[in-house]
């Protein structure tokens, strides 16, 4: 899977926004310059995760607790930083007045908790054995 597809999947997972060619270029350069490289085994798992993108938030949540410096999480963090420094995220991130804000916060918090619990299980069963 190429960097273009990878960043697209990450951006869609993070904020449901798609990335263009220039962002993909930026992402590739950053991955290659910063210490975000993956071992061959990790690359395999990462490829599978990107193919089953619905799993990403769970793995991300599990790693946030178990190993926040894991290269998968670093890649998601990089994607998030690139996303926030792009006009396409501005409207969402700068809007503070919303309908049903309290309900939204409650639902997202609940979702985050569920993702954390399931994520810890997934990370313990799949991701950690790969690193060993």
């Amino acid at each position, binding site marked *: 899977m190429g960097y273009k597809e990878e960043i697209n999947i990450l951006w869609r*997972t*993070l*904020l449901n926004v798609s990335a263009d060619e220039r962002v993909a270029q*930026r992402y590739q*350069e*950053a991955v290659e*310059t*910063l210490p975000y490289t993956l071992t061959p085994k990790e690359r395999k798992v990462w490829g599978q995760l990107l193919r089953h993108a619905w799993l990403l*938030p*769970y793995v*991300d*949540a599990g790693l*946030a*607790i178990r190993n*926040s*410096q894991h290269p998968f999480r*670093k890649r*998601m*963090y*990089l994607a*998030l*930083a*690139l*996303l*926030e*420094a*792009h*006009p396409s995220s*501005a*409207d*969402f*991130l*700068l*809007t*503070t*007045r*919303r309908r049903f*804000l*309290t309900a*939204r*916060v409650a639902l*997202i*918090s609940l*979702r*985050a908790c569920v*993702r*954390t619990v399931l*994520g810890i299980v997934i990370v313990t069963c799949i991701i950690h054995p790969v690193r060993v």
Partner: protein
Amino acid sequence: MNKRHDCIVVGSGPSGAMAAQTLVEHGVDTAMLDVGYTSDAKYHIPDLPFTDIRRTDPSQHEYFLGKDCTGIPTGNIHTAPQITPPRLFTTHGVEHWLPIESSTFHPYQSLAYGGLGNAWGLACFAYTPDELHGIGLDVSRTQDAYTTIAQRIGISGEHDDGGPYALNHVEYIQPAATLEPSMQHIYAAYQRRRKTIQRHGGRVGKTPLALLTQHLNGRTPTPYTDMDFWTNPGLSAYRPAITLNALKKQRHFTYYSNRLVLAFAEKKNEIAVTAQHTDTDHTETMYCTRLLLAAGTLGTARVIMRSFPNAAHCLPLLSGTYHYLACIQPAMFGKDPGTRKISYSQLTLFLDEAGDGNASATAMLYTYRSLLLFRLANQLPINYADAIRLLAYGSSSLVIAGIHHAEHPSAQKYIRRIPDASRATADVLQATYTLNAAERARHRQHERRIASILLRLGCIPMYRIDPGHGSSIHYGGTLPFDPTGAPYTLAHDGRLSGTRHIYIADGSGFRYLPPKGPTFTLMANAHVVATHVINSR
């Protein structure tokens, strides 16, 4: 040919810049020796509000993240997120030229043109007479000097309830910057509950800032674009480079960059100053009749310990203790934080437990927007997709209190110079910095009281962050003022004991650190020391 000057100033930070300006204004032939790194990357940042930039500029990643994304912080919360990619040059070269080994103390140092002043948060506190006395400074001279500095750099503020703790009798103060909605709420809550809060030792005032709200010497007032951590439109924020650039046009002033001063030797009629060229590695000696060291507390300590290698093994050290308290302000939940705002601290809470007009701790209040939310998302123990949503929903109600504690010397706070041939300067500084149980308990108690006052101001404390010693970026106390003239101390005029014409114009002499930013006082003291130098000729 050997270079000779009447006076040599070492360092171009706020202290060095002010000392040099005073000397040059009095016609003294002055040279400044400095490493003087500047930014080599050029950023094109539009003169637009942060919100417009975010919505429209396709190149924003270049300055928000750095051209090669190296401005993306990793690991735990960075203590100085204000050192953004356009300002990364502030700490350039430090690991190489100013190495420090410590497991307990992690300072910020600078070799930049303008020193740490390139990134400082502009909070200007005039210390009270008790605080000045405790530091070892001459009260009336320093108070006069505050007004001189205020005229030079431009300070905005208000003589409100925080005035006695922050402005005292300083004149030439421009009106305070307009508060953004979140801070207006806090200020209004304080006015409503003033009596109760004061009974609990709290006073709230607008933070005095070296930020213009009116025109001054060709500089323009703040445009309220909330881009203060990235750019300085109209030079509304005071940075030492403003002074240095003006000085460079003066006949009596010579600026030498790429000079890392190693040591000095005072001879009968002159002082020899040895500097290493940071670009070519060769060493050079320059001569002067008066030497003013303003290389920052740690920088000056290195020069002193190298100049007296057999005598000074160990020097005391002071570094203000600093904590963050992240709070939620329910009144701002779902509210518009406004477009017109500044990024600096707008309000300060002073905790005056004894009710004697001196603060035992202060909390500087900030809102959070232009430093971008992804940094905070990295601190939350949940997945990024949900973290960024929660932060976006709640960002307008986020208030961060930066808590400063007063700092006193102790046997567990010191530095020593260790020879090490593998280092660029053949030595390394080792630092030890630990608080004793009584100090830790006192800090905890102050924080509890601040947290309870914040609650009354409508801010719910959620999370305490301890970024470790060195994170306050307030240092001093290595060569304390001491009227007895003991070795490695300073006389009241800033002269190093045992020398005739070596003066120290930075925070090295401060015998204790009040719980407030020292830079305004550093600048005032540098002016006073330079005045003594002029009078001593």
